[in-house]
């Protein structure tokens, strides 16, 4: 029984990170209709930014969150303005190719700069934990979850309250109408793509605390971002959050499945991905717009 409680906690802690991983990806996809295959590469850059700040200047990873955000936001903004902007209205294949190429380019540059060595951010408090009843909670992952919730909260408030945020949502609803109301759409797209990259950078910082860093570390997260987005609903903050938590909890509970059929032993932990994807399929059949996604015209 206590294992189930532990699994729930593990799932929520992992899900919080997945929510941030998916948030930027979801905004770019939902608002610009671009499936940003370079998202994993931005996550990796965020992790390296944290690593460099930590090892060279002894900056605590949590303090480097805003730095990762600003660095990656700037990079994303520039990339959108001078590259992606050209394919925003093009068929999806063009943006697919472009962002895939970008991803390869960034990963290969990272290989030159940082080599393929695997590094890690190990702080003095990494691994520290406390026990609540029978459940062990690692501090780092709890802080990470709190940071993740704070970031999604800030994003939600900003998108609904601020002028730019409202312009972004207007653009997502109807580009033409937004333009007629005086929204400078290219500018909005650059901000959204910058946000996507910035949030990926933040996710990279959070991930670096528990996951090994190397130039290809972004790949598995890119795939998870994709699933989380579709699961929760595209283009919204709450979609990413609910999707991330759901995915984390499903994966966590999947490890408990242990069935023996005849001589065939089936272990759920080896099938985590498969189980999560089956759940995705069911959600798509029952609620094609995702758990909290809104139907669009």
């Amino acid at each position, binding site marked *: 029984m206590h*294992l189930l409680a*532990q*699994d729930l906690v*593990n*799932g929520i*802690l*992992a899900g919080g*990170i997945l929510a941030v991983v998916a948030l930027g990806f979801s905004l770019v996809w939902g608002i610009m209709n671009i499936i940003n295959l370079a998202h994993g590469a931005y996550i990796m850059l965020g992790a390296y930014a944290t690593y460099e700040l930590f090892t060279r200047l002894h900056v605590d990873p949590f303090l480097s969150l805003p730095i990762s955000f600003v660095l990656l936001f700037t990079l994303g903004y520039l990339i959108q303005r001078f590259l992606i902007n*050209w*394919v925003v209205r*093009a*068929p999806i*294949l*063009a943006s697919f*190719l*472009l962002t*895939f*190429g*970008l991803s*390869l*380019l960034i*990963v*290969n540059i990272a*290989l030159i700069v940082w*080599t*393929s*060595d*695997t*590094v*890690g951010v*190990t702080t003095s408090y*990494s*691994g520290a*934990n406390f026990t609540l009843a029978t459940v*062990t909670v*690692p501090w*780092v*992952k709890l802080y990470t979850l709190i940071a993740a919730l704070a970031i999604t909260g800030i994003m939600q408030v900003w998108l609904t309250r601020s002028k730019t945020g409202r312009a972004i949502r207007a653009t997502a609803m109807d580009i033409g109408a937004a333009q007629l109301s005086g929204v400078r759409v290219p500018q909005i797209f650059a901000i959204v793509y910058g946000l996507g990259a910035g949030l990926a950078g933040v996710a990279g910082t959070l991930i670096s605390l*528990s*996951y*090994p860093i*190397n*130039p*290809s570390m972004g*790949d*598995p*997260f890119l*795939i*998870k971002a994709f699933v989380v987005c579709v699961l929760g609903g595209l283009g919204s903050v709450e979609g990413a959050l609910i999707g991330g938590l759901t995915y*984390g909890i499903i*994966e*966590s*509970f999947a*490890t*408990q499945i242990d069935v023996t059929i005849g001589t065939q032993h089936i*272990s759920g*932990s*080896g099938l*985590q*991905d498969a189980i999560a994807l089956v759940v995705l399929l069911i959600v798509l059949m029952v609620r094609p717009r995702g758990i909290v996604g809104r139907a669009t015209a």
Partner: protein
Amino acid sequence: MNVRFLAALGSLTLCMTLAAPSVPVSADANVIVFGSPVSLTGALAKEGHLTQEGYNFWKTYINAHGGIKVGGKSYKVDIKYYDDESKNNTAQDLAERLIDQDHVNYILGPYGSGTSFTVAQLVERKKIPMVEGNGAAEKIFNQGFRYTFGVLSPAKRYLEGILDLTHSQKPAAQTVAITAASDAFSQEVAAGAAAFATAHGMRVVYNNKYPDTATDVSSIISALKATNPDVILNAGHLQDALLVHKGLKEQNVAAKAYGYSVGPDTPDFITALGKDANDVLGGAQWSDTVKYKADRPGFYDTAPEYARAFEAAYHHRPDYHNAESTAACLAFQYAIESAGTLDPEKVRDALAKLDVTTFYGIIKFDSRGLNVFKPMVTNQIQNGRLVTVWPRYTAVAKAVYPAPPWGQR
């Protein structure tokens, strides 16, 4: 700027980054060209680079010492690489390109069992011999392939030394928990460890796998913790070792020994984990303190000699990936010399008959092409340095057992 132009631009970016810097293969008749698809990007990039270093170190030595002598004539050697991006199918495609378009003489194996397996299928079709030093899954050797030879001990042996060691302590370790990634190599390592533990009277209290793309293993660790094992083993690669070891500390899982199939041997393990890396055990194909002496000339005679020269060249101690990769080259060198010709079929036959002791240990293949004759060693990280602790006859330090609690290392 129109869409078609941009699509073309995108594809161009793609092609430019995909194509590795290509060095034209020498058409010189006095050069033996080896080809190797190797993981320079992707999950296995680190291990792939270690593999490449091992190959290049041999190449530099051989070329500086007159090359390989074949029937009275000396040949220089060259190695052509492509990046397989840690993908099994890509490795196979690239091996085909190396053989069909680049016309390499022989194939040196990629890193990893998955890639070695797909390339093994290809060299079988092309009848070009491959010697590999980095694919230990026995699956590769149970297909009846004739052209693939592996210089390493089989995967199932990787964690046996750690079990043997912990079971010989007083009091002896009784219970074992095993976690394993889902790839072929890791699964064989885990199965071998479980069988060995059971055969030696230890109880396997937890044995489970996770997808090799896992980004979080907390729940596996929670389940493992509930079984309270004496020994915790992980069958996987460097990434797995780092992820699992951090996870064990986060959940305060205390065991008497922690062992990994791949990880502790690469310097990255120590730099990434700091003090937490201390007292961790790792199975290894080789260490620079093994006491073999080469029984024929042509390369460094002993492990320490190899290690010194290697460190001078690459500024880090050679780990077993480096050594086994170099050993794969040595197998070719001695087989080609004894064949007296470059004919692939004759070189294959010479490989099958090879029986040589090198700095790396014995290189001799069973009827399946696998080097079952070489024992493995067990290393431990002590005060940030990797030392060999098992088997006793080759150990340079006594194992720290039981491992002190977290925070006291």
